[in-house]
């Protein structure tokens, strides 16, 4: 009996078919004498193997820490299959059923996208992960924390500043934290508590550009917001 192995996301009927065929069907496309081979174009078998490989690749990529050997072997196999399918695209459509070249075309087109996108993103992740684990520096050093804030709605500002891991950012480099911030967000009404007239309201003039010098009170306020010790409250609207 075949082991259960990889759970395939296929139609149930297809699954049953596969199980029934057990081990007998495998090498049929390699056997030139096999009736199925003489009748069906070889790229049909390659394409099912291709689909299977893409499925495996996706499954592997979805793991939190993919097995590198498995991944590399599947990708290399996928490349082999892709290479063997490529010539069918250039075949004149006349002898083969007209459907086949377009199917192959689509497969190749989508395969390129899937393959390169998946591989690129995964391997980039792996590199980044390695960078993180090998150079354990405070996260603040790795990318300007101010970057995610640009263009973000003001209500998200505080959270964006903190980034993915909260602890490190507060420990050091607070000055650097504020350098790149687009401070125009602080000109918005939402951020100004009633008790502190820190900035003129938007109606008073154009919003501040660049990075104006924050005085100590403003800095303290912002730090409090970050640490969450001060609840952010809208100034109570009166007369509405």
């Amino acid at each position: 009996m075949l082991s259960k192995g990889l759970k395939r996301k296929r139609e149930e009927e297809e699954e049953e078919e596969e199980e029934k065929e057990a081990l007998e069907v495998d090498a049929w496309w390699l056997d030139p004498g096999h009736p199925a081979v003489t009748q069906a174009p070889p790229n049909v078998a390659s394409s099912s193997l291709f689909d299977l490989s893409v499925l495996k690749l996706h499954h592997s990529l979805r793991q939190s820490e993919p097995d590198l050997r498995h991944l590399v072997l599947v990708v290399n196999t996928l490349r082999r299959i892709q290479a063997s399918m490529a010539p069918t695209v250039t075949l004149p459509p006349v002898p083969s059923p007209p459907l086949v070249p377009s199917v192959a075309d689509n497969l190749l087109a989508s395969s390129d996208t899937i393959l390169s996108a998946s591989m690129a993103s995964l391997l980039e992740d792996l590199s980044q992960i390695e960078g993180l684990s090998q150079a354990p520096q405070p996260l603040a050093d790795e990318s300007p924390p101010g970057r995610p804030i640009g263009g973000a709605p003001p209500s998200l500002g505080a959270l964006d500043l903190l980034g993915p891991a909260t602890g490190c950012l507060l420990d050091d480099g607070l000055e650097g934290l504020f350098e790149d911030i687009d401070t125009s967000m602080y000109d918005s009404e939402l951020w100004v508590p009633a008790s502190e007239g820190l900035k003129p309201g938007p109606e008073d003039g154009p919003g501040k550009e660049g990075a104006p010098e924050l005085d100590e009170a403003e800095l303290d306020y912002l730090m409090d917001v970050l640490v969450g010790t001060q609840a952010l409250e809208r100034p109570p609207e009166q007369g509405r």
Partner: protein
Amino acid sequence: MAGAGGGGCPAGSNDFQWCFSQVKGAVDEDVAEADIISTVEFNYSGDLLATGDKGGRVVIFQREQESKSRPHSRGEYNVYSTFQSHEPEFDYLKSLEIEEKINKIRWLPQQNAAHFLLSTNDKTIKLWKISERDKRAEGYNLKDEDGRLRDPFRITALRVPILKPMDLMVEASPRRIFANAHTYHINSISVNSDHETYLSADDLRINLWHLEITDRSFNIVDIKPANMEELTEVITAAEFHPHQCNVFVYSSSKGTIRLCDMRSSALCDRHSKFFEEPEDPSSRSFFSEIISSISDVKFSHSGRYMMTRDYLSVKVWDLNMESRPVETHQVHEYLRSKLCSLYENDCIFDKFECCWNGSDSAIMTGSYNNFFRMFDRNTRRDVTLEASRENSKPRASLKPRKVCTGGKRKKDEISVDSLDFNKKILHTAWHPMENIIAVAATNNLYIFQDKIN
């Protein structure tokens, strides 16, 4: 080398007659994942046999002394020590769980009464000391028998504590922890013949450690490409030469082996020797690379040869000849026509190990359906045996098994389609001097001995 009643060959001195000796582990049909054995290793004398499992535990068996009073025990292996080597960990930085599964155990040569071994999971290697305590000191002056401290003013006389025998207690304690040196999954560890250093290998790098120093290691091989998108090959196994402390080999997923000499340069990215067998064009398929991927590499005890295991075969290489192996042994060639299904259910990625006997005259490796294969290099004979509870009567001879590849199935043969691919024998070990073998079948450990032995 035929089993009992095999093939009509004369019972020569080279023929083994393997008999069941013992089986360890639960009988349940329902196997707990944690109990699956993931590594098996004899120590240098063969008196100790260690197993590691997926649950991070190490169990050490010790061979009983053969005594006249118990002639039937014939050197049985009984549990000597059990300890939790690795625990499941969580890497908070990457939000990843680190498996506690023991990937490899390697013993250190014994230098005093205690035993030392290295055990590793995917990320961390640990040096364990296993020591015996069979005496207890009694008659302390400052504390009484319960261990409570005595009032010094009440002590009127002094006595010398005496050692009294106690029930044997075997203690395992971690002496060194070698951590944070591997980004990728560790697949091999190998103790150097200098007994001071060892190597650890992951998918892309090999590090050299000193057994005394845990806070740093030297990277000696790095095959990580500058651009990870160019990654096409990973390291699959590595081992030090048994006698030349500057030489080691590592195998790859493309079926190549590189021999490196640490004297030539600090970083051994450039090999001294490159072993690769040219591909046979007639058997080329989409799966050629996957089945050529080497899952294990082992030097012979003599140091003249090395053996590699790929999916379908075992190859013996002469270190002086890089162009091709000197021997190729087919393990289960009948699977070649089933590669697509085996690719589909991921069995094609299974990593089988292989091992030499003490005299390098025979090699052994596992297969499916709880079968394992032995090849006698001198007589050119091979045999397929099975590790199963059905053949587990004490001292019962193992009957050779045969897989029917096509046509009419003879009696006692099993057809390829009836093989159970869930019953894989990935880990086997051969006693360094005697004909005793240990075979791990999922959660059970079988020990077989040669009748003549």
